[in-house]
């Protein structure tokens, strides 16, 4: 079913165009991004139900202006077709802020580097996504009933279960970008789900975490239902989990952990605003080997169909598919528009904002390792003593020093080419990115992606994206 466009954006389109035209009288470049993203989050646990609008909802505008020297932005959320602020008054308020910024910059001892105005090719286009079941066709009663039924099934399956949260969230992302030469509009749905069981045996308490996502609608709940038994069983296994002996091991990364690796090891490090700041070690390696010859890594809003997908970014640049690593060689980074202007490179459609209220940065979209030709069985059989890292909790980048840290929820021990049945939890994986990527020796044949989490730049600016890969065999330090 086709995702409908935003009614709000349709009503204010002419007002936005008018505001751009008014401001263009005074400034060389003006663009306005307006968002109208809405959705609901449903959460069912043992003794509580929660229904609320998703925290990803937003409706508002950000105007970007080049004053002939540099860029200014102003975010607001009271623009509508009839009421709200008068367009001329709003334009005057924006002019006042730009003037004030210029005055301020003259008073303090900081440099003001000159940046050229953005040059765009004319484009007028709109896009709508598709899902199997549009969220508005399912009632709250239907969704809550299904999640409640899953909760009951979970408690029937496990005597150790003390709590479970079953969460389903759907979002309709709708954005309008208007500049003098461009009018772009897009509307698409994504959904995500979580199964978070908590089990206890005597004093041992463990939490499991299974996630689901995609450019999907209510059909995603089917995936939660299918995965529920395995997730509960895995939570029970965690009750017997041991601790890992810290050290360096041969490891197999599951597609989810491979995704974390793609994201934290090389994704953040090739965001080109990091190059502008001289914060990325990757800059020294452009055109050079950074990984084993079997490693290929892509990022792009059009490289895959997941929660990091879109047709145009928050700066009005069309999404693309960037080959970041090809046969182990670092080929290209991913870029927002202003970083591309500074570096004299081509923007890749990776300029993303947390919301209309925030600055745009170079951000990942769908980041993933490409498949190889090995089977998981072959990979396990090749390891004398190592671990299969199954599920992660979080990760952190270190683009300057190329360290990687990942909090792994649990790992399965491999002994003499077989899974021993022993589980360790939690596990900290860390290493030096070139060492880890150079050590990649096997990749399985199928890529799986996951986009249920969120990605920060440092510890803020959270945006949606996905990551993934095949099963990957490499060497890492675990602790």
């Amino acid at each position: 079913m086709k995702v409908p466009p935003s009614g709000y954006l349709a009503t204010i389109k002419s007002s936005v165009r008018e505001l751009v035209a008014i401001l263009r009288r005074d400034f060389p470049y003006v663009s306005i991004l307006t968002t109208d993203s809405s959705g609901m989050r449903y959460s069912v646990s043992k003794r509580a139900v929660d229904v609320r609008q998703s925290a990803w909802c937003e409706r508002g505008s950000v105007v970007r202006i080049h004053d002939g020297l540099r860029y200014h932005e102003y975010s607001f959320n009271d623009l509508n077709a009839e009421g709200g602020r008068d367009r001329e008054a709003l334009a005057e308020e924006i002019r006042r802020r730009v003037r004030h910024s210029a005055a301020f910059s003259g008073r303090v001892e900081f440099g003001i580097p000159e940046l050229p105005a953005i040059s765009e090719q004319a484009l007028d286009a709109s896009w709508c996504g598709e899902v199997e079941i549009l969220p508005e066709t399912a009632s709250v009663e239907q969704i809550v009933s299904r999640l409640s039924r899953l909760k009951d099934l979970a408690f029937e399956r496990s005597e150790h279960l003390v709590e479970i949260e079953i969460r389903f969230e759907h979002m309709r992302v709708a954005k309008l970008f208007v500049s003098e030469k461009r009018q772009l509009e897009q509307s698409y749905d994504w959904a995500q789900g979580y199964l978070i069981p908590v089990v206890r045996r005597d004093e041992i308490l463990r939490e499991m975490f299974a996630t689901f996502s995609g450019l999907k609608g209510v059909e995603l709940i089917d995936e939660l239902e299918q995965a529920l038994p395995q997730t509960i069983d895995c939570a029970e296994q965690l009750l017997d989990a041991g601790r890992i002996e810290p050290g360096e091991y041969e490891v197999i990364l599951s597609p989810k952990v491979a995704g974390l690796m793609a994201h934290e090891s090389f994704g953040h490090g090739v965001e080109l605003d990091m190059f502008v700041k001289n914060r990325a070690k990757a800059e020294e390696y452009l055109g050079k080997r950074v990984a084993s010859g079997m490693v290929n890594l892509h990022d792009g809003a059009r490289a895959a169909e997941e929660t990091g997908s879109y047709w145009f970014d928050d700066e009005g640049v069309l999404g693309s598919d960037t080959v970041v690593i090809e046969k182990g060689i670092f080929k290209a980074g991913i870029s927002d528009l202003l970083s591309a202007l500074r570096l004299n490179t081509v923007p890749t459609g990776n300029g993303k904002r947390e919301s209309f209220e925030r600055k745009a940065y170079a951000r990942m979209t769908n980041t993933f390792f490409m498949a190889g030709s090995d089977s998981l069985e072959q990979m396990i059989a090749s390891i004398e003593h190592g671990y299969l890292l199954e599920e992660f909790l979080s990760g952190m980048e270190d683009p300057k020093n190329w360290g990687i840290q990942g909090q792994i929820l649990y790992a399965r021990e491999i002994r003499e080419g077989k899974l021993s049945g022993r589980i360790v939890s939690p596990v900290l994986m860390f290493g030096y990115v070139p060492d880890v990527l150079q050590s990649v020796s096997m990749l399985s044949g199928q890529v799986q992606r996951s986009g249920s989490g969120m990605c920060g730049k440092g510890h803020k600016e959270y945006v949606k994206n996905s990551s993934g890969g095949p099963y990957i065999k490499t060497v890492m330090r675990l602790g």
Partner: protein
Amino acid sequence: MMIERLQRLLSGIRELSGWRINQRQIEGRELFFIRRDVDMQRSKDVDHISLTVYRDFEEGGTSYRGSVVVQIHPTHSDEQLRASIEQSLNSARYVRNESYPLAEPGSRIVRMPESGFAARPLEQWLPLMAEAVYAQEEGQEARINSSEFFLNRIRARIVNSSGLDVSYLSYSAYVELIVESSGSAGEVELYRELSFSDFDADALGAEVSAQLRHCRDRASARPTPHLKRAAVVITGEPVADFFNYYLLRSAARSVYSGVSTAKVGESIQVERISGESLNLTLEPLLENSPQSAPVDADGFALASTPVVRDSRLERYWGPLRFCHYLGVPATGSIGNVSVQPGSRADEKLRREPHLEVVYFSDFVTEPLTGDFGGEIRLGYYQDADGNRTPVTGGSVSGNVLDVQQRMYFSRQIQNCAGFRGPQSILLPEVNVAGAAST
């Protein structure tokens, strides 16, 4: 006047059992630097409103209170508002939660202390903040790579159907700072975020100066040795994260769900403690904390609340709803945590050989299990002869349950991001994995 429009529309709906409106009007200024060059200036004026509708119903002889929370946009017409309310009301019928009361208007009025930021227009503070930060570069062997400054003035208002109508003004400042240096370990950087609600140029400068010194040390740091099990001192913001384990165990919501079995009057630590006893208090109004607020999201008036005293659980804490479920007095959701510092002099804390970690890549304490850990970006290893060497790489990991009997808190205190408490914790035996050779 969106709140008044909403109130008018809500008053005409018969099936409604109650409602609450939360409004946050935010005026913000932002300034971005690459080295000493202004990268961009931003500003914003936004109005965020959320509406919670409550619907009471009975099923099988049990009373329920269903609720749905929706965002209201300033651009909504009356017709759109009415549709949103009615849809939420219908949906609330399927949210089966035990009944609970709404916050009542109280006679006790807690006032927010006035921030120094109120003395000038917002835009005038950003240069002052930037100057306080960049002045620290002088004489240092590290420099600022880039920085971001944010300052928000927030007018919050909470209105509900029980006649509650409270509002307060707060400020939230945030600085993100990346500093860099080079040395025998090559070119390195350290990331830091600082948040505060009042401007103290000296305090801000001291934090930045320490970060620059630490970055210099990281540039000459050696790989962390593989200590296997060692005494570890955790210093700075991760200390606050460590106590999240006790916050979850004492939360009314965790007890209600069965995740926590902690009981009031019993030890939340261990019975026989040879280290430090925990004393933890929730503070609604902590000096210079952006998390400070006189009321919580329900509009419930907050007060200083001792939760753990001498390691014994004094009371459960949480919002009106979950405290009501447990039949205990509500404390409300309080944003700041205060932990009593230790009795040991800081020199005594560091007398034995240990690893002190001052920067992690990302220190995480899983509040449910007590597992904690993180990769070391900068630590100092002190050997048996008292030699102190900067180290980097490798990791620290452990579990609160394994260390809580013999942990020691520093006498020196810190104030950071909604936390006031010891600057450091000494953990007796923790896993330390050494760094990979790079």
